[in-house]
C-alpha cells in the first residue's frame, strides 16, 4: 500500500494545453477526483516544464511551512488529435515572431542541432546514438511508450520532421500522467513507502524566441538553473550519479550534458559514443528511456522524470537499477526557455 493522498493539503497540476481535451481547471478536477475538495488546488504551466513546476510548487508550499504535504500531478492526453493540431498547440510555446514565420518547435531544435553540428563537428549519426541509447534503456522499463531497441541505421533512415531532425530524433506524442507527494520530514517518516530528499529545486528562464540568443546552441536557462541547484545542494556535477534530462529531441540531451557539467561545451556528443551515459556508464542518463522512448505526455514529463529518479534512489528500478544515491532531473519548456532542475538524494 502506498501513502493515503488525504495527507495532501494542496494539489498542484502541471498541464500544457487545453487544446487536446478542451479542459482547464485541472486543479479542481484533481481535487474532486481524489475526494479532496475543498482543498487548495490549481494548474501550473510552462509548456513541457509544467510537471517539474508542479513539483516545485509543492516543494515550496511544504518548505515554507504553509502545508505539511502537497501533491504534485502532471498530465497530458495528446493522442486523440492529429499531429498538425499537436504541432500547433506546441508552437504556442514560442514567440509570435516564430509562429508567424512557420518555425515549429521541432524546427527550432533542428536549427539548434544544425548550428551545433556546424560549430562542433557532430554528425546526424552522433545525435541518433542518443535515441539508440534511450530506446535500449526503455526495453527495461515496463511503463515506457516504446519498449523496443532501435538501430542507428533505423534512426538515420527515418523520415524528416524538420531537417536535420528525423522522426527518431524526436520524442513521440504520448498520453500519460505522473504524481509525486511532497511531505515534511515528520509526515514522510510515517509513510509506509521509502522517501527521498529534495536537496535542491531551481527554475530559470531565457528568451522565448531562441533566435534572440547570442549563441543558439547555449541553453542558458538550463545552465542557470543547474548552477543554482548545485549551489543550493552544495554539490558539484561529479556528485551526480544518475540523471533524467529533457531529450525532447536528441540534440537537447547533448546540450544537457554540457549544461549540467558532465561534458565541456561542444563535446557533449562524445559522451554517448563513449557509452558514459548508458546504464552501465559512469553517469547514466535517462535510464527510463527518456522523453524519446519512455514517452512525452507534455505536462506529465517532469514528474515522470522525478518518478524514475525516485525509483533509482530507492533501488526500485527493477532491471535498470544504477545504485545511485544522488540524482538530478532537468525539465524544460519552449526551446529551453524555462528550465526546472531538481536534485534528489537517497535517505
Amino acid at each position, binding site marked *: 500500500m502506498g501513502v493515503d493522498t488525504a495527507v495532501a493539503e494542496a494539489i498542484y497540476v502541471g498541464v500544457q494545453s487545453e487544446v487536446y481535451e478542451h479542459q482547464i481547471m485541472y486543479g479542481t478536477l484533481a481535487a474532486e477526483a481524489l475526494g479532496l475538495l475543498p482543498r487548495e488546488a490549481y494548474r501550473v504551466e510552462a509548456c513541457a516544464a509544467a510537471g517539474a513546476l508542479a513539483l516545485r510548487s509543492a516543494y515550496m508550499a511544504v518548505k515554507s511551512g504553509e502545508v505539511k504535504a502537497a501533491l504534485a500531478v502532471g498530465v497530458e492526453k495528446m493522442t486523440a488529435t492529429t*499531429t*498538425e*493540431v499537436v*504541432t*500547433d498547440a506546441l*508552437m504556442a510555446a514560442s514567440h509570435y*515572431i*516564430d509562429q*508567424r*514565420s*512557420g*518555425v*515549429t518547435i*521541432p*524546427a527550432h531544435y*533542428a*536549427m*539548434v542541432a*544544425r*548550428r551545433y553540428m*556546424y560549430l562542433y563537428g557532430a554528425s546526424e549519426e552522433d545525435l541518433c546514438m542518443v535515441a539508440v541509447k534511450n530506446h535500449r534503456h526503455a526495453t527495461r522499463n515496463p511503463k515506457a511508450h516504446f519498449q523496443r531497441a532501435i538501430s542507428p541505421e533505423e534512426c538515420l533512415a527515418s*523520415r*524528416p*520532421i*524538420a*531537417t*536535420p*531532425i528525423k522522426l527518431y530524433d524526436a520524442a513521440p506524442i504520448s498520453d500519460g500522467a505522473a504524481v509525486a507527494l511532497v511531505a515534511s520530514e515528520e509526515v514522510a517518516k510515517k509513510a509506509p513507502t521509502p522517501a527521498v530528499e529534495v536537496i535542491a529545486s531551481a527554475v530559470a528562464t531565457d*528568451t522565448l*524566441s*531562441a*533566435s*534572440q*540568443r547570442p549563441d*543558439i546552441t547555449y541553453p542558458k536557462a538550463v545552465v542557470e538553473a543547474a548552477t543554482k541547484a548545485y549551489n543550493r545542494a552544495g554539490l558539484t556535477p561529479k556528485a551526480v550519479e544518475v540523471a533524467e534530462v529533457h531529450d525532447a529531441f536528441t540534440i537537447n540531451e547533448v546540450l544537457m550534458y554540457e549544461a549540467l557539467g558532465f561534458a565541456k561545451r561542444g563535446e557533449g556528443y562524445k559522451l554517448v559514443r563513449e557509452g558514459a551515459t548508458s546504464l552501465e556508464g559512469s553517469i547514466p542518463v535517462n535510464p527510463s528511456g527518456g522523453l524519446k522512448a519512455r514517452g512525452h505526455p507534455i505536462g506529465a514529463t517532469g514528474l515522470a522524470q522525478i518518478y524514475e529518479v525516485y525509483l533509482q534512489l530507492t533501488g526500485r528500478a527493477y532491471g535498470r537499477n544504477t545504485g545511485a544515491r544522488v540524482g538530478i532531473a532537468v525539465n524544460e519548456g519552449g526551446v529551453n526557455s524555462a528550465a526546472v532542475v531538481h536534485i534528489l538524494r537517497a535517505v
Partner: protein
Amino acid sequence: MTLKYVAEGRLVGGRCVKCGGAFFPYSPVCIYCGGEAKAEDVPRRGVVLSYSVVHVSNGRFTTPYTVAIAKFGDFQLPGYVKEGAVNIGDEVVWEIGELEGGRWYYFKKL
C-alpha cells in the same frame, strides 16, 4: 507595434542604451539586461546562422518549406525563406509581403 511597423514596410528592433544589446522585435525594456532600449531599424542584408526544411507543420503552412535564423547587422531574426534552399553563411535579405494569408516578413537568398 511590430505589425504597425510591418504595415509601414519596416522591421524595428530594440537597442539597449545600457548594454548595447540588439534584439527583435522592439521593446522599451532590454530583454538582456532590463535597461532602456531605443527603436532601431533592422538592416536589410543578413547572413544565415542556421536553417531547417520543415516537413511536418501545423496545417497553416504548406510543407515542405524552409525556415532560418539570420543575422542582420546586430539583429538576429527567425524567418520563413521564400524561393529555394539556403546554407549556413548564405546572404539573405528580408522583404515584407504576403505569407500564408497574412502580411509578414520573410527572407530571400541574395
